[in-house]
């Protein structure tokens, strides 16, 4: 096991950031922590990277205990905090060189590991890190976290504030890194990214809702989901919410995802109901369950 977390709890003054969290991450696994802002993801990362001490419970990283053997962990993990944390007044190359030096290595020594990523930012190597775009910053931060060839990589919301193209590229890079045998623990508020992980833990309000592979998590969800659309989204949502048989209603892109309480639900009934609420251009169709649906269901 690369990471084990058992019964971790952590509170700040009045807020319970983490409550009785347990999970394990296998060696070479790409494990995702999926949850909204404030779910406790960053706190968990900080406990695992030895920056915070949990109130209760224990955790190990690469076999070392996070409190008593913190020095050994600090030697063998790569950490990329959620906030961009490189030196903005240093150039791309200087940043990379600095992090290589403090980990007692050189850029050349582990260039193979970062090559794929570094070639993308190499044209800007003399630019100050503060002047890079969001995606570039994340690529540089990943390079810096990788330069000492860590056994475990902690990435706290690496794609927040990054454009969709760069996000996709970023996840492709993670997949390649995983093939090189690096265990990766990544957190994200984006549900679409969850499907790219080997296993995910859905987390909210400091509690883990479910841990499994993305496919299995979706399969746990048994209700049929309907995409509903009409001319007035706001009125559609309020109407659906007041519908006596409605089970769940929430906006999903241009549609509203709707589930019904009844097993023998007939979309025609709903259509009639919505028309009675003076909505027009109504569309109702079956759709595939996503991780977001599962999350919303579990988080209810």
């Amino acid at each position: 096991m690369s990471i084990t977390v058992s019964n971790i709890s952590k509170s700040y003054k009045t807020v319970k950031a983490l409550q009785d969290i347990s999970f394990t991450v296998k060696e070479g696994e790409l494990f995702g922590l999926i949850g909204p802002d404030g779910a406790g993801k960053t706190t968990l990362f900080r406990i695992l990277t030895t920056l915070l001490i949990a109130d209760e419970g224990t955790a190990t990283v690469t076999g070392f205990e996070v409190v008593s053997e913190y020095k050994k962990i600090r030697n063998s993990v790569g950490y990329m905090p959620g906030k961009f944390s490189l030196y903005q007044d240093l150039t791309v190359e200087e940043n990379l060189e600095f992090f290589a030096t403090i980990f007692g290595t050189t850029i050349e020594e582990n260039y193979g590991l970062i090559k794929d990523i570094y070639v993308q930012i190499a044209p800007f190597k003399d630019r100050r890190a503060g002047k890079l775009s969001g995606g570039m910053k994340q690529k540089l931060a990943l390079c810096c976290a990788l330069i000492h060839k860590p056994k475990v990589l902690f990435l706290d919301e690496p794609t927040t504030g990054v454009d969709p193209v760069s996000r996709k590229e970023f996840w492709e890079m993670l997949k390649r890194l995983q093939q090189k045998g690096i265990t990766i623990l990544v957190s994200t508020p984006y549900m679409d990214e969850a499907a790219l992980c080997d296993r995910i833990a859905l987390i909210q309000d400091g509690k883990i809702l479910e841990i499994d592979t993305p496919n299995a998590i979706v399969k746990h969800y048994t209700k049929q989901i309907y995409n509903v659309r009409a001319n007035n989204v706001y009125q559609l949502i309020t109407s659906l919410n007041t519908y006596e048989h409605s089970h769940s209603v929430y906006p999903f892109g241009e549609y509203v995802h709707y589930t019904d309480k009844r097993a023998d639900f007939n979309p025609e009934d709903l259509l009639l109901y919505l028309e009675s609420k003076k909505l027009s251009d109504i569309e109702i169709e079956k759709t595939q369950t996503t991780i977001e649906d599962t999350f919303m269901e579990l988080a209810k």
Partner: protein
Amino acid sequence: MKRFIGFIKKEYYHIFRDKRSLFILFGMPIAQIMLFGFAITNEINNVDIAILDHSKDADTKEIINKVSASKYFSINQIIEKESDIEAIFKKGKVKAVLNFEKDFSKNLIKERKATIQIITDATDPNTANTISNYVNAILAQYQKELNKDVTVAYQIIPRTRMVYNPELKSVYMFVPGVMTIILMLVSAMMTSISITREKELGTMEILLVSPLKPIQVIVGKVFPYIFLSIINAVVIVILSIFIFKMPVQGSLFLLALESILFIISALALGILISTISATQQTAMMISLMGLMLPVILLSGFIFPISSMPLPLQLISNIIPAKWFIIIIKGIMLKGVGFQFIWKETLILMGMTVFFIGLSVKKYKIRLE
């Protein structure tokens, strides 16, 4: 060692790429020393003085004429008796009284010497001192004229009396004082800001999750500032020697060693401040309010410690700057050797060890 060098290299990039800190580092010392230097040693102009002439003869008249003819003094009042002196000082306008003895000319001719008393209001010791120096210069000039073609010299003996602060304790104080302030500012404030900047920008998080030991981070952060502070100290000494003609009586080597000791104690204070503040702003406020004000007000730089109320005198003992000012005043102005300042050095050393110990103990190996 390679890690350490890499760290220092990074620190230099920070310092030399940040125009604001560069300005504080190198502009401030020069600006301050010029400001204090010229403000304090500035020539006096049209200072009001009063005359108490007990003889009213040719010589006293001549001296009074010379004094009033100079651009430095204007005669505000002629008084008639000794008891008026106190009253006139209390009014505050008159800064000095020239008191000619009885039979001034007669004495000068008969005994070849005569006495004049210069009484100055020393509530402002620097002005008082300058006034008495200027009057002395005028008297010396007059004496020289008298003695042009005589065999036995005439002597006019000035008796200077400072009222309200007789010991006059701040001659040339500004150079040691400014040097202390600058070293404190650069060392303590700049290090505390540069460490808290890492916290604020989140880079401290990455440094913590790295094999760097806390001591390596701290030493790496302060090392460049030791070097820069030494450069500053050298600049200040050079400026004061060449622009303000301040003599450095004692050993420059001893001065350098003592300065390094003080720099280290200020750096330790800076680290201590950085451990208790989360943002650069807090660090700066604590440095300014907690360090600069006591250094300026309680170290004896501007206000003589002996004229403070007892509680403040006691507090001044815990301010490292006080001891450093005593030390460098001794070396620069009096030219004393180590045997005269070992006690102060020992106190400063003790404080330094205490601050370093405390800041290493308070340095967090984790967040919060």
